[in-house]
């Protein structure tokens, strides 16, 4: 009887390891998962998920997602997730991650804007000739 935690986001698999327990919160409240628990599916609102493995405790900050416990594998699917070992720094890690993500988004949009402007200029240049 084993329990495996698999955390997946559109960016890839962030976690895939054996764990002793998982504690998560869904829309009705907190619940725990230990090896041998009955299968379940739950919707996770944005928040924190706690797991315990041989290295100690771990915290996963989620932008909301799904948890699917089946055949001893606890699959957590989230749009975004940040894994952290220290409860005191989780929120800061998430803020840092979000700031970086927003900055990257803005930079990408700037590049697209520049490309669009350049394309327009050339089109207009072509049309003028």
């Amino acid at each position, binding site marked *: 009887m084993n329990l495996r935690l698999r955390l997946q986001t559109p960016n890839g698999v962030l976690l895939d390891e054996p764990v002793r327990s998982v504690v998560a919160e869904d829309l009705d409240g907190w619940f725990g998962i230990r090896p041998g628990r009955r299968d379940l599916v739950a919707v996770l609102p944005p928040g*924190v998920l706690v797991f315990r493995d041989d290295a100690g405790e771990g*915290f996963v900050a989620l*932008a909301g997602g799904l948890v699917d416990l089946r055949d001893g594998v606890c699959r957590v699917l989230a749009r975004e997730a940040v894994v952290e070992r220290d409860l*005191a720094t989780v*929120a800061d890690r*998430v803020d840092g991650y979000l700031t970086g993500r927003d900055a990257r988004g803005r930079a990408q949009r700037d590049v697209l804007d520049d490309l669009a402007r350049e394309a327009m200029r050339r089109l207009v240049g072509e049309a003028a000739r």
Partner: protein
Amino acid sequence: MNDYGDDVRRKAERMRLAREQRRSIWRHLGQIGALGWTLILPILLAAVLGGVLADRLDRPWLALLVVALGVIIGGYTSWRQIRRSLEEE
């Protein structure tokens, strides 16, 4: 994507506070237990010692005196322990 940073911060903070409170409850229970011994042990020892002394020296009032001493010592040391732990908070 929505700002889940606020939700995470709120929930992480609530979790942290709950854990701190849980730890401090156990610590306080432990302190109370230790305090009980600090008070009782001197009195018990004094009772035994006083009894033996009173028998050996054939002076029955000695037992009472030694027990009274034990009560004073126990009371004083537990009083100091309470003050010290209150100052820590």
